[in-house]
């Protein structure tokens, strides 16, 4: 779990701390953000599911480095932390530029 579960958790924590303690863009108070993340996760399932399907995987994970929980489809749950951190970080920088103007 050291190789993926841990850094994925740290990445989520990092973007949350970055927003709440440093940048304070107000992104987490915007309903548009949470609705967008729901839609993004909804689309992540078929796309990521295709990339990670155990029958013919495009991305192959070392089972020792993950929690071993793969849901839904064959998606390692860590991928959802990874995706959340990636998209949230980009939206934070995007919002930050608006705040600056």
């Amino acid at each position: 779990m050291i190789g993926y579960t841990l850094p994925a958790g740290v990445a989520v924590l990092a973007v949350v701390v970055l927003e709440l303690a440093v940048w304070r863009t107000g992104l987490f108070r915007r309903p548009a953000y949470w609705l967008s993340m729901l839609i993004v996760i909804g689309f992540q399932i078929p796309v990521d599911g295709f990339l990670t399907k155990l029958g013919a995987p495009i991305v192959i994970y070392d089972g020792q480095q993950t929690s071993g929980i793969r849901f839904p489809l064959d998606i390692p749950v860590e991928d959802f932390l990874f995706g959340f951190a990636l998209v949230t970080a980009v939206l934070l920088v995007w919002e930050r530029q608006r705040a600056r103007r």
Partner: protein
Amino acid sequence: MDRWQYLIVLAACLLITAPLELFGGGVYRQPWRTVRAVLPVALVFLAWDAVAIAAGVWTYNPRYISGVTVGFGIPLEELLFFIVIPLCGLLTYNAVTAMLNRRP
């Protein structure tokens, strides 16, 4: 055809989200703001990717990728992933924001 699978998935993501550009201020219509939001985050995640690949945390099935790498063992598809997925996220957020603001 199999080796284009990952690239085709990424192209499909761009294609499906493209119409969202029509809402609000758009994403592609603010190219500089988009670059400044996507690039620094992509660099951080590419560094993570390079470490994970080097440590064998994840690997890519050579059957389904083009075989082109961009350094540090990172497949071209992964570089594009960190541009395409953020673009999809920005386009979604742009459209949702515009729709929620358009109250009757």
